[in-house]
């Protein structure tokens, strides 16, 4: 293993190189610009291409074009660019094109605060385009090392599922510095639980059969197969159609190829859950690092607490929230997006602590756990006290 001391941005770039990325296209945006900058240096040295796009819509379309030509491709952005991906994201989902999208979340809506971490695209990553009739695959790292491993995994999942995969990070993960290990051979890659899935090409002119199978090679153009893909509803033969039954077949494939193999995506970590805690903290990304410290401290103080950290966000892991407890969801936003989803999945009380661009302190979280255990109301956050 080679050890680097660098940012999450740099880690994701190294991951892309190892995964065999052949084309990166992006548009400068804080805090994801560094990924583009690193890629502009790194891609040519690895034999790949860096194409700076005229806007984010073009960036993802360029990635689609590259993927259709047989390359593994990647783009990276933040919220204002992620929303511009809506158009090509839908194309890639429907035409079943493998590619990797990084979102370094900042504080929104719109430009908001460029240099502070946010978690505002939890639901947008579930519905990144219009029209419905699909599932998405979304991974969420909370460290520089995980930014590396999840990017390698994202490339593998994209290939296997024939779909875009979002790595939903936040500014603390992407801009934060830490040591991280990069495997130097296949054995070391496997030791990290990783694999590289090579790009293959669909052999025939047909599109995909109406089934839940994964590992079907994606459509590649320019190989003389007579392949066709488009934004229209496809028949199995690759023709465009307005037949609703055909569309239903297509929609079921988009949904169930992911749901039927979701064990390949589902990932989470827990702490203290074996003791059947009364209070369960739920988080993903950067807040989970404070949550873990707070739960350990609460347990040291004799409080009945545990935590669940989601490493994959979509498909949502409902079954993690079946146990009887008070759930406390901690997020980098004021509207409680993950909290809303936990509320849907859990049959027990769900509480929410969130702030814009600022992590809670471990002390605040321990105090919250104490209050919940006593059946008291949660205290207002520091920001809320200032607002009042």
């Amino acid at each position: 293993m080679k050890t680097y001391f660098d940012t999450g941005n740099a880690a994701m770039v190294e991951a892309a190189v190892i995964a065999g990325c052949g084309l990166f296209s992006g548009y400068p945006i804080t805090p994801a610009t560094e990924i583009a900058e690193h890629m502009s240096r790194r891609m040519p040295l690895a034999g790949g291409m860096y194409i700076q796009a005229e806007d984010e819509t073009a960036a993802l379309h360029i990635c689609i074009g590259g993927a259709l030509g047989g390359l593994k491709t990647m783009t990276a952005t933040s919220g204002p660019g992620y929303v511009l991906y809506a158009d090509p994201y839908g194309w890639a989902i429907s035409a079943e094109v493998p590619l990797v999208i990084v979102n370094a979340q900042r504080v929104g809506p719109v430009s908001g605060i460029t240099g502070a971490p946010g978690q505002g695209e939890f639901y947008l990553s579930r519905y990144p385009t219009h029209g419905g009739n699909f599932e998405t695959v979304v991974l969420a790292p909370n460290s520089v090392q995980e930014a590396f491993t999840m990017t390698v995994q994202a490339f593998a999942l994209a290939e296997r599922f024939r779909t875009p995969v979002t790595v939903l990070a936040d500014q603390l993960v992407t801009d934060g510095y830490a040591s991280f290990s990069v495997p130097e051979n296949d054995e070391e890659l496997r030791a990290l639980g990783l694999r590289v899935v090579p790009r293959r090409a669909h052999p025939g002119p047909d599109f995909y059969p109406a089934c839940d199978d994964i590992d079907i090679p994606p459509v590649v153009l320019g190989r003389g197969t007579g392949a066709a893909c488009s934004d229209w509803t496809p028949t199995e033969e690759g023709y465009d159609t307005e037949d609703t039954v055909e569309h239903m077949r297509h929609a079921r494939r988009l949904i169930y190829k992911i749901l039927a193999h979701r064990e390949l995506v589902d990932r989470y970590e827990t702490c203290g859950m074996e003791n059947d805690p009364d209070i369960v903290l739920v988080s993903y990304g950067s807040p989970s690092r404070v949550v873990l410290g707070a739960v350990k401290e609460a347990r040291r103080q004799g409080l009945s607490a545990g935590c669940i950290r989601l490493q994959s966000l979509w498909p949502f892991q409902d079954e993690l929230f079946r146990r009887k407890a008070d759930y406390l969801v901690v997020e980098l936003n004021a509207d409680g997006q993950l909290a809303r989803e936990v509320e849907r999945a859990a049959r027990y009380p769900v509480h929410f602590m969130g702030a814009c661009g600022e992590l809670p302190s471990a002390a605040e979280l321990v105090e919250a756990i104490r209050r919940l255990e006593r059946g008291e109301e949660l205290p207002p956050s520091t920001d809320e006290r200032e607002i009042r």
Partner: protein
Amino acid sequence: MDYLAERYLRPRKIPSTACSGCGLGQVHKKILLAVEQSGIGTDDLVWGTGIGCTGRQTFNTWKGDNFAGTHGRVYAMAVGLRAALPEEKKILLTVGDGDAFGIGLSHLLHCARRNVGVTVIAADNFGYQSTGGQYGYTTPQGFVTDSSPYGTREPGWLQDGADILDILKSAGATFLARHSSFEGQKAVDSIEKALDNKGFSLVHFIYPCVTHFGAVGLNSRDNGKIVRWFEELFSAKNRPGRGPHVTSGITHDARGSRPEFAAALRSRTREIREGRHVQA
């Protein structure tokens, strides 16, 4: 078209579902004649399409490989595809005026700026006809359409001294031509040259829509009358200031004058990889 259709098109897609009297079939045929003239086989060319009458009518008609982009973005997709495909594979895009000169203009200009090796056939029926006949960006000013019941108020890209082909030339396109769908061999020759260009080519075809532009804009579904109006549009009698006017023929031929985008990107990548690159 029979022998051309048999050789180059998918039987399931012929005949098309275009309206009776539509000029798009003539444009489609000229593309195939130029393909035949160039000696291009079905494996040599990937055919992409935009959204609208042109996109829908030409998508997946080609016996080789096909793709259809989102509205106005097929130029950006072509940038990535061009980078991934071998140099000898041609990329042809058939798109409409709304796609190229409206929603996709930014991407089209950047594609020209990069001199991406694609041939764009912009088939222009003066508005959004597949959505029922709204005005576009080449619709002559003052014309009545379904979204301009009192006549269009905005100037278009083909009047008051403006010409969309001049804009594309300034952007960096290396081959540009304009024809009507009624023209014959000259138009075919222009497409052949466009396909021959290693860089960015665009051939602008103006063709009549009988159902909307004819019926509403020209107040007639009579094909003869409509064709005569379009011929007048190109004729020298209608000089600027005396009505809508466009010229036909090759307006810019700078083939080989600039490096093609993907070829340059590939050679630059090789140089950097081998440590031979020099900073400009």
